[in-house]
């Protein structure tokens, strides 16, 4: 049984960051890179299935779409028990939206033909929560999102899982395989990758694929292949708050003043 786990190297903001000159992203030097937390749970779920399997061998493959520095994250995944790692990159991929990324992931899934494709329910930096499900749509596979519990026996044709719905409801479902499942935080306890394990994982090769290797056209990815584009990234102006003190009359006076100020601003904004 093969489980493909799509992982993303996400960016976290450092202290006192600056926006890039083109205004579309944060300057790279202010970003700290790490494995997306949801993907950590997805990987743990896959490795857990592998370790629990007594008969059927289970292979866990991690795939990430990103430039060379994503290797660090893939190595961490290898240290946590993934058997193989694939990294796909091509300069044309830059600027892709989740659907374009899904095109690439779908190509990898066709190539590897896993029974299960796990993805995190969302990524902590962009939070589209779309990549996994878009991949399922492109593959025309069964899919389910935001899993909080999963049981699958290696070699089986179906998988059972649970999803948490609003209002404390639980959804228990069964799906045919192959399927794409997106994993919610808390489904398990991701293991710790010791530095020793990470160092040892450095010896495991990471397979690097280009778009050509996957027969994906350059036009299908990047800004060209994306249906949506980033216009700008910015920090909104902070709202204001003011504690009004004094007698009832003076408080009322101040409230009226504020209403006039805000109304005036809104009026001039319209104008």
């Amino acid at each position, binding site marked *: 049984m093969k489980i493909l786990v799509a992982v993303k190297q996400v960016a976290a903001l450092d*202290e006192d960051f600056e926006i890039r000159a083109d205004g579309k992203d944060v300057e790279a030097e202010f970003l700290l890179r790490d494995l997306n937390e949801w993907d950590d749970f997805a990987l743990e779920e896959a490795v857990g299935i592998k370790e629990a399997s007594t008969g059927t061998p289970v292979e866990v493959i991690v795939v990430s779409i990103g430039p060379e520095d994503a290797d660090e994250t893939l190595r961490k995944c290898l240290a946590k028990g993934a058997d193989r790692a694939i990294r796909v990159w091509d300069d044309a991929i830059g600027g892709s939206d989740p659907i374009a990324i899904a095109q690439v992931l779908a190509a990898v899934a066709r190539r590897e033909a896993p029974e299960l494709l796990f993805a995190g329910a969302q990524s902590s930096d962009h939070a589209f929560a779309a990549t996994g499900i878009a991949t399922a749509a492109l593959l025309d596979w069964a899919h389910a999102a935001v899993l909080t519990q999963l049981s699958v026996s290696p070699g089986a044709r179906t998988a059972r899982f649970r999803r948490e719905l609003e209002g404390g409801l639980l959804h228990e479902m069964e799906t045919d395989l192959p399927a794409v499942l997106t994993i919610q935080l808390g489904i398990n306890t991701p293991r*710790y990758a*010791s530095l020793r394990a990470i160092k040892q994982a450095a010896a495991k090769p990471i397979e690097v694929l280009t778009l050509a290797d996957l027969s994906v056209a350059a036009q299908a990815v990047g800004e060209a292949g994306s249906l949506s584009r980033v216009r700008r990234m910015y920090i909104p102006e902070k709202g204001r708050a003011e504690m009004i003190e004094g007698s009832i009359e003076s408080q009322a006076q101040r409230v009226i003043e504020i209403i006039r100020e805000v109304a005036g601003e809104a009026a001039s904004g319209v104008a």
Partner: protein
Amino acid sequence: MAGSDAVTRVLFEDFTPSAVRLFYAIGYSAIAVFLYGVYAQVRKYRRGAPAGIPLNLLPRLESMFAILLNHRMIRRRDRPAGEAHRLIFYGFVLLFLGTATITLDYDILGPLFGVHFWHGEFYLWFSLVLDVAGVMLGGGLLYMMYRRGWLKPPKLDYARPDRAPTDPDYDRSNYVREDWAFLWTLLTIAATGYLLEALRLVWLSGRPDVWDTRWWSPVGAAIAQGLQAAGLSDAAAGEWRRNLWWFHGLLALLFIALIPYTKVKHIFTAMGTLMFRDPKAAQRLPREKADAPHPGAKYITDFNWKQLLSLDACTKCGRCHEACPARAVGAPLSPRDVILSLREFANRTLNSAQLPAQAELDVHGKGPGQVAMETLWSCRTCMACVEVCPVAVEHVPIIVQLRRKLVEEGEMDPQLRKTLQTIHKTGNSFGESRRKRAAWTKTLGFPVKDARKEAVDVLWFVGDYASFDPRNQKVTAGFATLMHDAGVDFGILYDGESNAGNDVRRVGEEGLYEVLAEGNINTLTSATFNSIVTTDPHSYNTIRNEYPDFGGRFEIEHYTTLLLRLMQQGCLSVNRKLNLRVTFHDPCHLGRFNKGYEAPREILERLGCELVEMGRCRSNSFCCGAGGGRIWIPDPVGAEKPAQNRMREAATIEGLQVYVVSCPKDLTMFEDALKTTGLEGKFVVRELIELVREALAQPQSTPAAPVAA
């Protein structure tokens, strides 16, 4: 008369040749049983990993005998027991040498060369010395019996904090039986020895060469007089003697035969551990072998022979049990029980001719002899156990090696896991940006040199807590001001500094430690400076004792010695005496680890403080509970914390005004504990730096940190 050859002790007089042969047969059998036992024990130790330590036999023997003869380690914190042991030890050694002398004369030199020396004046002095030795032995044993039977110190009750009464290895009554059997056997051998002597004197009272010299055996002679007075005849005495002689001889031979199988073996095993003792066992932890199949200790055979030997050296004296801060607050850890568990485990698995399957050698878990992860994570690596152990058992490296395996398998508190990941990612345990490491310098009225960019005299390794913790930042800024005012040419590494790794290593995350140590060593090596100073005892310890193993050899001191020197040189002068009643808390990593006891005390004296020591001070200082990575692990809710235990101890000091610390983690831990114990208002917790600043302040200016009365 005294010089006569006839003045000696009869050995086998009146024995039939077959009785003598029987005695020798039994004697040789006893020696055979003894030797087999020694072989089996050595085989057990050899199943451990190589220790990789230089043999250096002569200096090691010298230091071992020095400790053995002066008994300095065994007297610590239990003087009466130490003195009683000294009596037993010297009595036993003399009696052993005496018996060996007879063997040398009667069985070796006599039959082989016809040479005899065991008679005449030599024999008389021999008798006297051995009689005195017997009194020493007996006296020591009687005190030990009184201690076990009547004094009953809690450290000897073998109560296990790491097991429930229902667990199969909870019961330690066999140890108690063995303790008593040991005492009674030795006492019986000694008592029957005197009785035999007396019976022989009565029996041979007709021989002037025996009877006239009897007072050279004063105890025997006194008993003989008594027996005669009670009407014992010569013949009856001879009869009694023959029977008692067999009893005494067989018991002594049984004792010898059983040495390798019982606690008596500590005679040899403790000599071994004292010989191979590592004075830096806890300060400088062992490196991981690069080719090891798994990190740390998973199987009992992952311990080296020296560690396996030390498991057998433990005499269950309970000093580590008593000193352990985790045990004191009810955590499921007693260093003694870790050692005894592993000993029981090793005896069960490594004593047979064939090693059992590897799975049965796994020492982790909750089965008999195994060590539970809750036990291992309770340890603060404060070194109290290692420091007090009279037979040089080195608990801390054993515990850390066991933890390395837990870390590898992720068996740790989620918060600790997160902290380790954070340190890997950001280089500090606060999860702050590297850029913010030197943010505290912004409050200073002067620039602090970047030691990476310009040469400095003193490089200040600031450390995580002193850099990022808001309360400690004030102290850090205070120390910067002191150095600036004293004209010290100093600089820091800014965002080039990472967590020094001391506690990461003690958690057992050796790989991360290597990354941190190597990173800091690279940064330090590329900077130009004469020496390093730090306010953080943890950083101090690892840079001083552990970085050299990674090629980083730097001169480093704790700030207390630097401040004292500046005061002695007149670069800093006290403008007003503080007149405070204070107590001083020795940080583990400054005191026990690196013997920095005096400098802070001398500073306090110069500040005009009246220092009142706590009961547990200097080498017996009580850990704040933050060591060994415990600062990153939440303490159990409701249970007392070591820092709270310490605050209650300090509160017993009449009129205490300031509890003085000299470690950033101590400041955090104790200020918190002062609040949670409800002792706030009784006294305050202050960093020594704050007191120095206050005493240095010009009289007209307001003190840096006002101290509550």
